[in-house]
Structures are given as structure tokens and as C-alpha cells.
């Protein structure tokens, strides 16, 4: 229902009108030129008569005593009811808009000057008489300018969509409350969530959408509410996927009291993307399965799919920052490109090369050294597996820095060593301070 209130007052009175919470459009409708300013109020989903009465009461409190309100399904009927109806609220019953408008003379509408003599010539004086004509005859006899007027006379007013924003669509939700018992067992809670998720996911699937985020609202027996937002890497309407996420949330969730009700609300949805790919691409049939499995991995293990971002830090272990490969960058990210780079012929493969593997933490080792010119070189070292004889060692490669940074300061002498059993290891001696300990930092493999 549209509600039009037309106070016969000055414009200043309307601007100062207290109408917080009510959507209003101070602009007058384009086709009608009423003498009084018009306020448009959207009453869809509300009781229009009660709203109009409350609105007039508010205006009366502000000193506007002669305001009128019209309630109708179409803007033209609502405006005519407000501007020409009885004082107070005039309600046009749904489905009777055309009949209501038909009673008014054409002068109630904004008749184009060129059309006025033509209408007079054919003897049309009321909206009902104009509405009785066919569109073709209006176009032929009165011209194209008269068609919008003819539409208004038929209460065929398309301004409703421009006056008010479309109603926000309700997102899927499901709620279950219980009174006679309380739940503190996670397994029982999960059972309830599973049932609720079925409703939510069915609604999502029916709408062809996938949820990006679902709010889990737990009503607790201590009269408080705990809300947990669960996000999925990819929009999904799969109950299994959301149940997996719900399980991981419940595993780490600690609630201060037992649960007396659960509500699931979808807070973010997107259309489920179906990527357009070439039928002749390799791996076409497995793109979705691959994306699904990676999304599942990220959901389960967080930033597990990574890409290195390297700097020029002197220390190799500080040089790399591991960034999330897929999360937050979608298919346009580097890893996403890798996933979808299904070209039939890729770049030529590289020859293998022995590369360095780094221990997560340098492992302290015992080293025997000999003097070579002006420095010591390792000839034997002992790690967890025992002694290893070094047959050749290159180095030292001296790396130092951060002397100004206290504990972060480092000064190391690196050696690349080949052991008798064929391993190529990377040893270093920390030369900071008095204790010069040796460490195994990595190996070439």
C-alpha cells in the first residue's frame, strides 16, 4: 500500500516534520501538479491506516492541523485521495483504484496544454471517460502525449518503483526454541543445528543462491544471546559444507550457559558462480571438484594453501612471507590462476635442480673444525642421527645485521658441506656473543 499525505501547509512545515524511521520522499510526483506539497510514505508490510493516522498525529503535534492522508495501492489513487479526499485519512480499498480515480475530473490530473482542447473536442471530461478509450484511439486522436495521461486515468501508475526502493528480500533463516529443557551437550546442539541447516540450505538451493555467511545465534538460559558468524570460503548451499563449518565452530566455542534456543540466519548470499569455460580445455570436468576441495581445505585448515612472497632479507628464513593463496583473492589470484590455467600446452618444464630445504628451526649440532688459512672449516658434525664426515666445505659466507635491534641481532658464518654419504648440508656458526654454536640450517635435496 502506498500512503500519500498532502498537508495544505507551506513547505517549511514539511521539512521540519519529525518522521524518523519512516521513509519519505519530499519530491512531488512527476505527472501530477497538486497545489499542496506531497509526502510519500512507503507502508508496504505495515498497517497503512494505522500508519497514516500516526503520521497525521505527528504532524498535528508539529502544528500542522489540516493535513490529509490518502492510502491506496497506486500512487495516483493515493495522491488523489490525499489531495481531494475528506479531512483525515482516506483509504482506497485494494483493487478499487481504477474505479476511485474514474470519479475525478481530468483537471485533477496534470493535463498537457496541447491535449486539453482535443479532450474538450471529443467531450471527455472525467478520468473514467478517458480510461474507457482504447490506447490506439487515444494515440490516433490525441497523440502520443496523451498516453501517460490515459494511463494515469486507468490507475496504471508505474511510479511506485521509482518512488520507493524495492523491498529487501528476506534471507533464509530458521529458529528453534525450547522451554522445558536446556541443552549443554554439543552433540545434541549439533543435532538441532543440522535440522535447522536443512531448512536454510533448502531455501538457498531453491533460490539458486549460496550463503557466504551464516549467523548462529544461541539463546542462553541466562537470558543472553551469543552470536557466532560462520563464513565459508565459497558461497555454498550445501548442508554438508555448513555442517562441517558448524562442527569446527562448536569445537572451539565455550558458552557461559546452557542453550535454550538456536537461530540460524543467512547474512550474506551470492549467486552460485558457474564459471564459463571452454569445452575443449583440459580438466574442464574437474574444475568444480578442484575448487570445492580447495575451499574445503581452506575452511578446515585456514590459510593452508599458500604462496611465497620473498624479500631481500639477508637471512633466508626471514626472507619469505607466506600469503594465503586463494582466500580473499578468489579465482583471480595467482593460485586461482594456477587452478584455472588449463591450457592444452603450457610452458616447457624446467630441468630439475638441487634446491635448498630449510629446517623450520635451525638444529644445534656439534662440529669439529680445522684451520684453513685464516678461518675454521667444519670437517665433521654430529646431529640426532650421529656423526657425519664432511668431505668438502665451501665458505664461510658471512651474514650479519640488526646490531641495533638487541636480541634480533645476528652474525653467522655459513658453510655448504658435502658429507661422505652424499648429503649436501648447510651449516652455520653463530658468531654473536661469546658462545659460537653451530647449527644445521638446511640441506640441498
Amino acid at each position, binding site marked *: 500500500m502506498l500512503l500519500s499525505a498532502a498537508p495544505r501547509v507551506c513547505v517549511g512545515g514539511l521539512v521540519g516534520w519529525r518522521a524518523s524511521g519512516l521513509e519519505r520522499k519530499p519530491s512531488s510526483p512527476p505527472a501530477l501538479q497538486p497545489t499542496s506539497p506531497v509526502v510519500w510514505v512507503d507502508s508496504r508490510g505495515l498497517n497503512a491506516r494505522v500508519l497514516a493516522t500516526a503520521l497525521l498525529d505527528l504532524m498535528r503535534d508539529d502544528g500542522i492541523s489540516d493535513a490529509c492522508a490518502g492510502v491506496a495501492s497506486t500512487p495516483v489513487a493515493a495522491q488523489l485521495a490525499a489531495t481531494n479526499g475528506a479531512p483525515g485519512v482516506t483509504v482506497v480499498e485494494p483493487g478499487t483504484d481504477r474505479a476511485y480515480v474514474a470519479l475525478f475530473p481530468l483537471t485533477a490530473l496534470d493535463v498537457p496544454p496541447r491535449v486539453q482542447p482535443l479532450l474538450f473536442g471529443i467531450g471527455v471530461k472525467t478520468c473514467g471517460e478517458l480510461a474507457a478509450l482504447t490506447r490506439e484511439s487515444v494515440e490516433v486522436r490525441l497523440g502520443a502525449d496523451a498516453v501517460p495521461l490515459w494511463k494515469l486515468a486507468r490507475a496504471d501508475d508505474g511510479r511506485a518503483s521509482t518512488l520507493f526502493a524495492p523491498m529487501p528480500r528476506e534471507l533464509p533463516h530458521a529458529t528453534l526454541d525450547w522451554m522445558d529443557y536446556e541443552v549443554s551437550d554439543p552433540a545434541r546442539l549439533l543435532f538441532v543445528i543440522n535440522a535447522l541447516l536443512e531448512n536454510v540450505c533448502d531455501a538457498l538451493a531453491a533460490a539458486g543462491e549460496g550463503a557466504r555467511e551464516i549467523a548462529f545465534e544461541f539463546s542462553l538460559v541466562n537470558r543472553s544471546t551469543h552470536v557466532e558468524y560462520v563464513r565459508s570460503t565459497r558461497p555454498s548451499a550445501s548442508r554438508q559444507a555448513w555442517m562441517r563449518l558448524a562442527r569446527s565452530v562448536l569445537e572451539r566455542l565455550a558458552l557461559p550457559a546452557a542453550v535454550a534456543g538456536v537461530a540460524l540466519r543467512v547474512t550474506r548470499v551470492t549467486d552460485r558462480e558457474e564459471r564459463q569455460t571452454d569445452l575443449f580445455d583440459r*580438466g574442464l570436468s574437474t574444475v568444480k*571438484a*578442484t575448487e*570445492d*576441495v580447495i575451499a*574445503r*581445505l581452506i575452511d578446515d*585448515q585456514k590459510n*593452508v*594453501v*599458500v*604462496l*611465497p612472497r*620473498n624479500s*631481500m*632479507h*639477508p637471512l*633466508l628464513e626471514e*626472507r*619469505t612471507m*607466506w600469503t594465503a*593463496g586463494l582466500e580473499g583473492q578468489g579465482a583471480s589470484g595467482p*593460485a586461482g590462476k*594456477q*587452478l584455472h*590455467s588449463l591450457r*592444452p600446452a*603450457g610452458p*616447457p*618444464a*624446467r*630441468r*630439475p*635442480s*638441487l*634446491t*635448498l*630445504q*630449510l*629446517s*623450520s628451526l635451525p638444529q644445534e649440532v656439534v662440529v669439529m673444525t680445522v684451520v684453513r*688459512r*685464516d678461518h675454521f672449516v667444519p670437517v665433521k658434525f654430529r646431529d640426532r642421527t650421529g656423526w657425519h664426515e664432511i668431505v*668438502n*666445505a*665451501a*665458505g664461510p*659466507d*658471512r*651474514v650479519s*645485521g640488526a646490531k641495533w635491534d638487541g636480541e634480533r641481532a645476528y652474525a653467522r658464518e655459513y658453510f*655448504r658441506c*658435502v658429507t661422505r*654419504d*652424499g*648429503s*649436501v648440508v648447510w651449516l652455520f656458526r653463530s658468531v654473536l656473543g661469546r658462545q659460537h654454536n653451530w647449527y644445521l640450517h*638446511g*640441506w640441498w*635435496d
Partner: protein
Amino acid sequence: MPTGVAELDRVLPGGGFPLGRISVCEPRGGTTSMLRAACQNVVAGGHRAAWIDGARTICGAFWDDGPLLVRPDSHTHAVRAADELLRSGGFQLVVLTGVHATDPETMRLMRAVHDGGGAFATITQNTTMAALRLAAQIDGCEWSFDPFGEPAELEAVHVRVHARALGWDKHTTFTIPVRTHELRLSLESGLADRRGLLASQRRR
């Protein structure tokens, strides 16, 4: 599924890693390099490859884009990631390193690789249920020497690979170069550089 290393493919049954089966490579001796080359070869062929770095030993400075890199934070997560990736069927090659799967886990992985149809290679000592076993060892090194006649750079290594499968026992030797990262040496005047000289001496 060819590894892209011609010398290695020649000694593997079927000319590469078997699809739908487990291949086990013993640690060290250049196995990581061979598997990384195989991953690059798969990606170059327009397929997908995944590398699960269970021990988190991959050095970012040496990582080449191409395969999907997965860095799980625990043994269980690594095995689960391998299971999921293999079962999806979207990866031609999945490599699991740094994780020694138990027998039940290996059984589960075997079912996953069978269902997915890709190839699965893991670096471990446990060769249970492996259709192909690879053992590699560095047989010799090629050094470059400095003016003092001391080793300066490790240029290349000779790798000897032993491939074993049911009714199959072959070996080969090939040479692979050694990649080194860009060193940033001593910048401070109080510390000697690689040649054993202090900054003040260098200026002179």
C-alpha cells in the same frame, strides 16, 4: 605419468609415475628436486599438481610457481589434505613430503589415489603398499674452486636413482645443477666479509 626428466623416465616402469598408485621416494639424495620437476612437468602439460609440504621445509626463495602449495600445520592435516586432493580427481600429481603416514593412513591414501585416478608420490621411509619405490643418492659433486684452490661453489651433483617395482629393478645416473640463493653478505664494518677482510681493510 612422465616426470619430465628423460633419464629418469627411461628407468621407470611405463615411463613415469603410475596413475592410481602410490610411489614412494626415499628421503634425500635429490628426490625433492625430481618430484618438483615432475610437478612442473605436469603443470606445463596443462594439468594440475599439488605439493603438500608436511614438514614445512620448502624455502620460499626456491619455490617456482605452478603447483598448488599446501602447508598444513600438523601430520593429521597433511594426511587429510592429501586424501582430499587425491580423491577430488582434479590433480594429476599430488606430492606429500615430511609426513611418514602410518599403515592405516597409507591404506586410506591408497584408496583415495585409486578413486581419484591421479599419481601420488610421497617422500618417506615407509614403503608399504608402494607400487613404485625410488631411492636416490648423490654420487658425486662438481665444484668450482677459488684462486686458493678451495671449494667456492657447488655447481652440480651426480644423482644415482634406483627404481624398483614388481618385476622391475633399474637404475640410472644423471647430473642436475645446484641452485643457490642470492647471498647478502656482511654489511657491517666490524665484521669480516667472505674473504676474511674487515671493511677498513677493504677500503685500503
